[in-house]
């Protein structure tokens, strides 16, 4: 359940990129893995606790996202949808294997003093680290929505997501807005990566799995809907842990998959999605 916050943050990043550019970021999970490795680097080399280091991770991933959009995605915005998927798959492949080259194949885990302790909340005991990850992730999501709803750049991003032509007509530098949006989406997942680095062992090939998890959440919540991604993350986390309690633990993943199928059958646009007109 407490993973929900992080799930949400990761999905919010994906849905932001999709909502604005209509590009499915297949390298999303790999960007998250890079967030984890950056947190790990800082913790092992500089002794920076990941609960502080996530800021740097987010910044670094922002730059990565910005550059990917400017240099690669921007060039094929008009190409068919599937070509963009292909491009992002190429990026994912490069990111995954660069991580393998640089960091090696062993699973890593960041040690944070906080990750060791637990507190008792009434009858259940809770991991302090998870509690913090959840709180920070929710806080970041709130900050993101403040950014989107209260700042000029944020408004431009929402405007470009709503109607790119309209944004162009009124003189918005849409290319810059796109790059910023991609950067912010990547920063979200980078921060999410740093936050779970002390909780979740990570290896370079994990990216695909994380991408798929994000897609599930976003589809369940509704493509392009920030609220949907946020609530979707919580729903999936709750559904999975409930599923694990009441069903065989091995069916845990099946739960979110079935949820996905149900959503696709009965609400193809997702819980908070609007049908394209």
């Amino acid at each position, binding site marked *: 359940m407490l*993973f929900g916050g992080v799930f949400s943050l990761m999905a919010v990043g994906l849905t932001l990129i999709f909502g604005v550019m209509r590009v499915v970021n297949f390298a999303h999970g790999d960007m998250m893995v890079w967030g984890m490795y950056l947190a790990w*680097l800082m913790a*092992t*080399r500089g002794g920076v606790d990941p609960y502080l280091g996530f800021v740097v991770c987010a910044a670094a991933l922002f730059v990565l996202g910005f550059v990917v959009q400017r240099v690669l995605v921007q060039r094929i915005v008009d190409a068919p949808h599937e070509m963009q998927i292909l491009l992002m798959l190429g990026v994912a492949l490069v990111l995954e*294997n660069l991580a*393998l080259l*640089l*960091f*090696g*194949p*062993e*699973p*890593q*885990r960041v*040690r944070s003093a906080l990750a*060791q302790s*637990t507190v008792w909340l009434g009858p259940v*005991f809770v*991991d302090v680290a998870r509690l913090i990850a959840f709180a920070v992730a929710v806080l970041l999501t709130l900050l993101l929505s403040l950014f989107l709803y209260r700042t000029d750049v944020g408004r431009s991003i929402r405007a470009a997501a709503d109607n790119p032509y309209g944004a162009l007509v009124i003189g918005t530098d849409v290319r810059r807005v796109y790059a910023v949006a991609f950067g912010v989406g990547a920063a979200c997942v980078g921060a999410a990566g740093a936050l779970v680095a002390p*909780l*979740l*062992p*990570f*290896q*370079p*090939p*994990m990216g695909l*799995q994380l991408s798929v998890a994000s897609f599930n959440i976003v589809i369940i919540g509704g493509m392009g809907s920030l609220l949907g991604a946020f609530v979707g993350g919580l729903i999936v986390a709750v559904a999975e*842990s409930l599923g*694990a*309690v009441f069903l*065989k*633990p*091995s069916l*845990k*993943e099946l739960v979110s998959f079935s949820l996905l199928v149900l959503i696709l059958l009965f609400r193809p646009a997702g819980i908070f999605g609007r049908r394209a007109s």
Partner: protein
Amino acid sequence: MTSSPLTRRTFLKATLAGGAIAGAPRPLRAQPKPFRIAAVHPVTGPLAEPGQACRLGAQLAVEAVNAGGGIKSKGGMPLELLLGDTQSKPENGRIEAERLVNQGAQMLLGSFDSGSTAAMVSVAQQKRVPFLIDIAAADPITANVARSVKEGQQKVQYVYRNFPTGSTFGRKAVQYFTEIFAEAKVTPKRVALMHCNDLFGVNQSRGFLAAYKAAKPPWTLLEDDVIPWPEPPSDLSTEVARLKALKPDVISPITRPASALLLLPEIRKQRIESLGIVGPGSPGLYEAGQIAALKEDLEYVMASNPWPNFRSPKTQRLAEDYQKRSGGRLFDTNSGYSYDAVFVIADVLERAAKLDDPDAIVEAIQKTSYTAGLMQYGGPVHFNEIGDNPNAIPTMIQILKAKPVAVWPKDAALQKFVFPRPKA
């Protein structure tokens, strides 16, 4: 953390150099043409970690053979490794084997996971290239070939394996459990089995359950309450909560490195009291990185794994060398079995009547009786009618003072096991 990026760079350099030595033809003296071996392992993708260990083990062995004068009966012929990467995907096992055979490989070595190993079998049988499996546990890989030879569909078996089979793992684990419990004078009534729900974990747990049913030991396995988890997991708290509800005497996990990093701290956090954690054999419970990350959580944990024979000074020397070359990784199951496989091949080549005839090599393989291996064997390396080495067996190891130590069977033990685990 032992493998920081700095040492990683030295590791890369080391393996790069190793690759160059093993990979380049050596025009130094007027040596005979090198004998080429295709070493196919999953060095990228989800299985990259053990795959890279296998590759480095094989590379070190080739260096050692060549430094020792190559294959003496063939005029000091050196060995050369041609390297292949399955990317952890079966179809690449086949195409990499084909590519390397095309580049002149005369024997195949590989490939850690059973899927790509099976795909390589077809290359071996169709193209008549002898194949020594260094690691892959699935019984049918060799048994199926042996059966088709027996039934006359195939003339010759080209596939041999120097690694315990899945059924051996189960049988030996049950045997060790029984012996250790007897030695410790306990009879656990509630042994709880947990496993990762991937191909490896499922096969391993099935083998263990089957062996338990067959052996009918005095201790009791909770057969109906086996707890699986999806691999890699994101959270094991519910699984461990279920485990706690079982009130286990002994916890018996089959892990992968990633899941072990979650499982053991979770067991501590949920304060499950038990006699100890004894696994039927799996990675994740003994590697240097895991010990560094898990620290006291791994202390006293036992697992039945193929293990190097550290009583031998030769093994100790190599383990040190390996640690230096790998940037601090431990010489263990994967590097060890790949290392031994190269030496078995060298021994075979030494004895083979001629090398340009695969059947002559096969004949030499079938007559193998090799005793200088670095791993802990139950006897000399030899191959039975199925093509397996019946003396390839696991050893019970235990983490004692942050070091994995062989503790059972008695003749392989470096120290006495500590069981039940002392209360903290």
